[in-house]
């Protein structure tokens, strides 16, 4: 049996065992709680009716919720009740804008830092100090200065996405092979032509690796940022369902976040493939 097929079979087995035992473990025993006035019970909701805490949803419940969300992902029924697709759209929009702005600054600046040892020396301490700061630590400062929670979330994405691209661009540009630069010099290519036709393609795979790391971090951070600023987005959706004690929806959201993150990574992986070169 080919390795690929064997891996798939094993994956199916692991999932079946995991989900199966979860399903069995989470199915409540049918011991009836103390009798309760049905009217009162209706008022309290299903959980209180049974006199227990909110039950852990079973995989079958989660699948039902997932189907519920996927059936109609783009509805809007008021500020707190919007389709999963709408919420994801907001998150993707924020990540795209924040990441795009970060790329617009990081790639040209990284280019200059990579070209100039003086700039490199000047920027290095700044980068080293700011890079390890959790992006969420910027949030209060952003809210104070920008005064708009939506734009603050974008700023937080921007600030966390900038470092990997900046460092990778600078490194990629600084490590362009000397012989290629010599070729450009002997062929009298000017600084612009050298930058765009030699240095940029030579450093492109390294820059793309940085972009890939950045988008991964941005997608990690957007959930946390949206939990803080609220309003819209997949992070807000998770927080809202926590307030609703809707655990099944939270699990659905976790899966969706994972899938979208994977898709983003593969998208940039494809782009990286397209510009990569083999020596």
């Amino acid at each position, binding site marked *: 049996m080919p390795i690929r097929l064997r891996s798939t079979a094993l994956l199916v087995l692991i999932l079946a065992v995991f989900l199966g035992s979860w399903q069995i473990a989470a199915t409540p025993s049918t011991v009836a709680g103390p009798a309760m006035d049905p009217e009162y019970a209706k008022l309290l909701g299903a959980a209180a009716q049974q006199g227990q805490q909110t039950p852990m949803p079973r995989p079958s419940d989660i699948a039902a919720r997932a189907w519920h969300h996927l059936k109609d992902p783009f509805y809007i029924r008021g500020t707190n009740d919007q389709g999963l697709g709408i919420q994801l759209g907001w998150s993707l929009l924020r990540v795209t804008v924040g990441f795009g702005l970060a790329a617009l600054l990081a790639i040209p600046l990284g280019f200059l830092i990579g070209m100039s040892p003086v700039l490199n020396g000047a920027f290095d301490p700044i980068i080293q100090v700011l890079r390890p700061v959790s992006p969420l630590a910027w949030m209060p400062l952003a809210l104070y200065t920008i005064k708009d929670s939506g734009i603050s979330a974008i700023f937080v994405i921007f600030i966390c996405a900038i470092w990997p691209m900046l460092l990778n661009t600078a490194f990629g540009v600084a490590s362009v*092979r000397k*012989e*290629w630069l*010599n*070729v450009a*010099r*002997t*062929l*009298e*290519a000017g600084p612009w032509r050298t930058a765009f*036709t*030699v240095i940029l*393609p*030579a450093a*492109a795979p390294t820059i793309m690796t940085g972009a890939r790391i950045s988008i991964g971090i941005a997608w990690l951070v957007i959930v946390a940022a949206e939990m803080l600023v609220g309003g819209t987005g997949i992070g807000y959706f998770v927080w809202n369902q926590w307030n609703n004690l809707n655990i099944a929806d939270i699990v659905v959201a976790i899966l969706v976040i994972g899938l979208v993150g994977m898709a983003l990574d593969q998208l940039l992986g494809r782009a990286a493939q397209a*510009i990569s*070169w*083999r*020596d």
Partner: protein
Amino acid sequence: MSRAWLSIEGIARRYGDRPVFRDVWFGVERGEFVALIGHSGCGKTTILNILAGLEAPDAGSIVMDGKEVSGPALDRAVIFQSHALLPWLTAQGNVAFAVRSRHRDWPKARVQEQARRVLDLVGLGDATGRKPAELSGGMKQRVGIARALAVNPALLLMDEPFSALDALTRGTLQDEVLRLVAGGQQTAFMITHDVDEAILLADRILLMTNGPDARVAEVVVNTLPRPRDRQTIHRTPGHYALRNHIVDFLVTRSRALAGTRPPGWDGRHVPEVRPADLLIKETAA
């Protein structure tokens, strides 16, 4: 004393305060093929880089066609030892890069056509669309040669261009250079450590002592008649003496002479020898 077309005038390179080489003078005439032979570390690649304008000498200067060389320019093309092709461009793209440098006003189609034409000239007409990673070592260096020739350089500089290739490929590429360059039309300067390569291609062979403080100790005039043929050149009268002279220099004298300067040594007037002629005279007598 009249100046040669390309005149290297007392160049030196120091490493700290120790000279790698100094007081190096020689000239190259138009259409001449000059090779420089020496062991690693004598600074021969540095000399080539200085001629290319990629490095500046610590002393002395280079004058080409009456103008001082200061920096790289299109009139001096380099064939690099490591071929130095841009791996994200195809063979044709690499040559077109050079063509575009020479003919900035040409439309794209004309640049590409010229690139194809030059690749055809080096026997790569079928590989124009391939990336360097898809080419063999010999083919890569052919692209390197095409790229250098594409700018119609007044001076072609070669930095051990075939040293990374296997013996068979090296032979065919030497034939190629013999056909394209050593016909008396193209002025060329080559760094090598391959004695047979120098004998096959060069009109004059400069012998450099080992470093530090290396110098050009001798100029060997290669009087073997042209056209030369790699298959038969070793049977040409005088070939044996010429080859032995250079090998002797590389094996013993380059080391014995290292760092020394005989009394009255003048870098401007390096002794010139014609080992191949000596033999002919001896056998005639």
